């Protein structure tokens, strides 16, 4: 089941949720805020953040020892803007990432 009756989020939707949380926090957010905002387990969130950092969607900033924040990049902001189009494109074809 997908679309309006979806019971799970696609990978693209989770990435968008993480970016939305960071964006709403003024462009940078700590792991705890992202974890609650995007409703993810710690392990999953770290996996997603690592992948998003690799793809240039977020930037990891170490402020002090053991204090880390994630900043949204320009590409991340553009992805957030194009999100609806991307989801609609994939939904039309019945594909999912």
């Amino acid at each position, binding site marked *: *089941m997908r679309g309006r009756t979806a019971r799970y989020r696609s990978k*693209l939707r989770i990435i968008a949720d993480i970016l939305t949380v960071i964006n709403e926090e003024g462009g940078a957010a700590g792991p705890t805020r992202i974890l609650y905002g995007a409703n993810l387990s710690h392990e999953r969130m770290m996996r997603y953040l690592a992948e998003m950092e690799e793809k*240039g969607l977020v930037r990891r900033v170490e402020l002090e020892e053991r204090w880390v924040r994630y900043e949204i990049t320009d590409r991340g902001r553009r*992805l957030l803007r*194009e999100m609806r189009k991307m989801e609609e*494109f994939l939904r039309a074809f*019945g*594909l*999912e990432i």
Partner: protein
Amino acid sequence: MMIGWFIMLSSTLEVVEGLVAMLTCYLALRFYSLARERLFLALFTSFLILGLGLLIHGLAAGVVLLMAPRLRLPTFVLALRSLALTLSICEAFAYGLLAYSYTRYGAPRHGGQAGQGVLPSLMLMPALAASPTNSMGQEVVVGLVRFHPLLEGLILAILAYLAFKTISNFLSEKDVNPFLVSFSFLFLAAARVCFVLAFSLTILYITAHVLQLLAFLSLLIVLLRVVRA
């Protein structure tokens, strides 16, 4: 006369279809540049090859037709047969890659006449050379713009799979865009049936091209709707 009419129709429609495929390719590239997801790369590659195949075949066949008075008949036939082979390979690869994408990234759901092929056609060339261009049989004309019924059959099998997947998606989503995409692949598959049968019944070649054009126009509507989302 018959050849000219056929190739001009085929070329014009293929250029229009190729442009739609290139537009899809551009959108997939735009999404890939942002998300860096392999699925978008696969869609980009698939529609790029399909678009290039259609554009190259459409434009080059038109050029060959314009140069026809200056070409010897065997050269004319060989040029068109080579272009037809290029198009068939591009289509088989593009649709094959798209089918692979569905096996890997498909959203989870609950709910001829072989004797008229390459060798016989090449063997026909001396006979064609001996006769005036406008006296070519209609079936031979189809053989100039479509390579081989077996290759068309392979593409048909891939398109049937894609039509099945997109129709399943529409039945699950019940929305306009999934409907248009399923309509598009259903018409592409139907067009391919007509292309295969056109080797025996030439009039189906026109039907095939009309169906294929409708399929690409349907895809164009989806793209416009996505861009405006």
